[in-house]
């Protein structure tokens, strides 16, 4: 069966520091991978989407970036965090344009 791992679960970072969140999927090949962000009281906002190694689509302009160095690895990064980057970050995978399955999420607080 497929599983998705996301870490860390919680993170407190100062403004201006870098960020790296990692997500890996097991039990499937060539998944579609997503990074979503959920701000307090709001729905999930798609940040990045990837259909394959090195293929990244960005939905929202921001100071974040994503990379997919391996088929089942998806990384969310920032060179300098802003206060507004605080939120709940979720990695997800799907076999196609159907249901998505989520990792446990990372609660990021920028102070």
């Amino acid at each position, binding site marked *: 069966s497929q599983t998705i791992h996301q870490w860390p679960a919680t993170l407190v970072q100062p403004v201006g520091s870098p960020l790296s969140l990692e997500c890996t999927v097991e039990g499937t090949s060539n998944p579609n991978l997503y990074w979503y962000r959920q701000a307090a009281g709001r*729905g*999930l906002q*798609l940040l990045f989407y990837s259909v394959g190694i090195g293929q990244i*689509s960005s939905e929202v302009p921001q100071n974040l970036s994503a990379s997919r160095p391996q088929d089942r690895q998806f990384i969310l990064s920032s060179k300098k965090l802003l206060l507004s980057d605080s939120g709940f970050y*979720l990695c997800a995978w799907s076999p196609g344009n*159907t249901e998505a399955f*989520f*990792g446990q999420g990372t609660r990021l607080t920028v102070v």
Partner: protein
Amino acid sequence: EDKVVQSPLSLVVHEGDTVTLNCSYEVTNFRSLLWYKQEKKAPTFLFMLTSSGIEKKSGRLSSILDKKELFSILNITATQTGDSAVYLCAVPGGSQGNLIFGKGTKLSVKP
């Protein structure tokens, strides 16, 4: 622009009550509608609906889709405190077929 609107945004009921959560959508090429339950962390998948009028059921939860009127409802009968969560509705849409989420309905079940 593809979008999903959920109502109500929040709901407080007592154990044993029956609740109905609403989801309306606008999407260019409809493929499916999905319901998720989100407690403290990652959303967990509940239902995927593709055809009008066919009820999906899982225990005390059920859902139905109306593709003519562009909405879906999620029913929970005999609610329990463990049903307290945010319920999210989503449709594949956008430029990449990624899931577009509503803001969710926060359900609180009081003992």
